[in-house]
């Protein structure tokens, strides 16, 4: 499959730019932070000011520093879990799609079981059992439970690719199964793999933050969920300390939006019909207007105004 290269849409550009900013902060957050995030000071529960951009906590800790330093943990768990889950998804999804018969069916059943079993309760329970719940452990647990959606999508696509002529031809010419899978099928799954990777990163970020928020994961490292955990525990709401939980929430939402904007872009490569098309109203020779809509046959309307029903009459 060759992708038609075009200027990435505005959505994708914005998404990638946001991701780049978060990645930068993940690497250099500790160096950028104006204060030590755990260090107490006398500025207790200060509203945002020039000195403390996002205000301070009940112990006088600088929230801006906490957010900056916490970015690393969030990005690390998101991407590590995403890579692990995508690897498992590719392995299981492609295998179960390519193999026919009992082996394929049973792998597909396994992934369906993982989809249906409620993930968050399971992750909460497993994390609680794991003795050392640092970032690595959490990323592993999330990766091992979050692969099933991707596997399901990849299986469906592999099933349809298996019947295509070029795959049949490769098999007929005696290429090994391994070679057919890696060189004929995998390249055609790139977009789906990428989009399921991004979906899993999003899931992992949300899950990690949720775990930290309810206080299940260890409190050794700062992350955004940790900030919210303290905000909730110290009654930030009742104290009117909105600055304590608003920045972390907005960061989560921004990261999530960035990921889904990139995903929009990938979706539009896979399925060109999803591209937003500009309004294209064309004037016919006799002055009547026709609105062009992708997927509809343009029809001259009787009335001069353009009806919203593209293929009206």
């Amino acid at each position, binding site marked *: 499959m060759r992708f038609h290269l075009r200027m990435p849409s505005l*959505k994708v550009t914005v998404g990638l730019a946001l991701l780049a900013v978060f990645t930068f902060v993940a690497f250099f957050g500790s160096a950028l932070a104006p204060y030590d995030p755990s260090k107490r000071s006398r500025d207790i529960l200060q509203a945002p000011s020039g000195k403390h951009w996002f205000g301070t906590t009940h112990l006088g800790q600088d929230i801006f520093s906490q957010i900056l330093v916490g970015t690393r943990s969030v990005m690390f768990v998101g991407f590590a879990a995403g890579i692990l889950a995508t690897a498992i998804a590719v392995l299981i999804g492609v295998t179960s799609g390519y193999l026919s018969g009992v082996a394929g069916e049973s792998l597909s059943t396994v992934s*369906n*079981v993982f*989809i*249906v*079993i*409620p*993930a*968050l*309760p*399971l992750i*909460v*329970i497993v994390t*609680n*059992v794991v003795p050392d719940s640092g970032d690595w452990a959490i990323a592993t647990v999330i990766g091992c439970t979050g692969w099933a959606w991707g596997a399901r999508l990849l299986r469906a696509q592999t099933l349809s690719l298996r019947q295509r002529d070029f795959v049949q031809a490769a098999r007929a010419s005696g290429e090994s199964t391994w070679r057919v899978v890696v060189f004929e099928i995998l390249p055609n799954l790139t977009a789906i793999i990428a989009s399921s990777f991004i979906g899993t990163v*999003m*899931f992992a970020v*949300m*899950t990690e*933050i*949720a775990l930290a*928020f*309810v*206080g299940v994961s260890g409190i050794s490292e700062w992350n955004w969920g940790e900030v*919210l955990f303290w*905000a*909730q525990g110290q009654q930030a*709401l009742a104290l009117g300390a*909105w600055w304590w*939980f*608003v920045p972390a*929430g907005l960061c*989560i*939402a*921004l*990261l*999530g*939006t960035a*990921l*889904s*904007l990139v995903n*929009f872009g990938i*979706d539009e490569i896979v*399925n060109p*019909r*999803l591209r*937003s*098309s500009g*309004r*294209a109203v064309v004037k016919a020779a006799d002055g009547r207007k026709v609105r062009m*809509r*992708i*997927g*509809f046959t343009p*029809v001259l309307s009787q009335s001069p105004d353009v009806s*919203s*029903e593209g*293929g*009206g*009459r």
Partner: protein
Amino acid sequence: MKYFVRRLGFYLFTLWAAVTINFFIPRLIPGNPVDSLIAQRKGQIDSKAVESLTVLFGLDKHQSLASQYFHYLGQLLHGDLGVSFQNFPEPVTTVLGSALPWTLGLIGTTTILAFLIGTLLGVFAGWRRGTWVDALLPATSFLSSIPYFWLGLISVAWFTGVDSFLPNSGGYDPGLIPGWQIGFIGNALRHSILPAATIIVSSVGGWLLAMRNMMVTVTAEDYITVAHAKGLSGRRVMTRYAARNALLPSVSGFGMALGLVVGGTFLVEYVFSYPGVGLQLLNAISGHDYPLIQGVFLVVTVAVLAANFLADLAYMALDPRTRKEG
């Protein structure tokens, strides 16, 4: 019928898998904490309860794993989930029995409402593609990127207060006794407005996008062009021809997404101290109440499977191909 039987078999298999996971997890806990908890409560727990906990958590090391496993299955079949440590001496089933209606009511209503609203908006957004509606899509993805629990925190801060109509926590006022009286139901409804609104707002976006993308794909089909060519009204083509077919993947995705939705709503229960299963789970975890943790996981899985089964029935009603014999 074949479809029906296959799905039923799948659910039984999943149930078995969940029960088995539940069997193994406590056996992986290093230095079994249940042991020490029983030791702490020595003299308070009667021997029968100790026996049931022994079976649930594999404290009896003399038995083989296989015989432990069958013993465990037998006990589950009798509906014995052990004794809750936190709510001692209440059995886990009693604790779950009082929490489950709250969760079912809240999640059930909000998930269905969010699905209906999101799907309706998605039909519209897909049909009006290339108009101003497209500009709203990034906004919906922003909304669905906000964690449920954070939106809950914000709405507590904005909408509740000393003199507000909306309470900030709990499922009902502390003085009331749960029952089917008008006063109590009204009070419970008032408590559920904010949690419900939170869940709906943050989950509508996902359904909207899924439905919109399916609508866009479906509208390119030949039968839509034919319907237009026949001169049917645009509305009729949109609802009867495009939406009905675009709905199928959403309905089959409904059950599958429930597993994810449940997790998010648990956090909403936590934020609002809503007396449901999710709050019980999180409390049980902080209190190391292992029997209750196990029980919650099992009950939630069963509930999600049941909901999946209902979604399958709806799918059968919508798609005649699944009803075909053979």
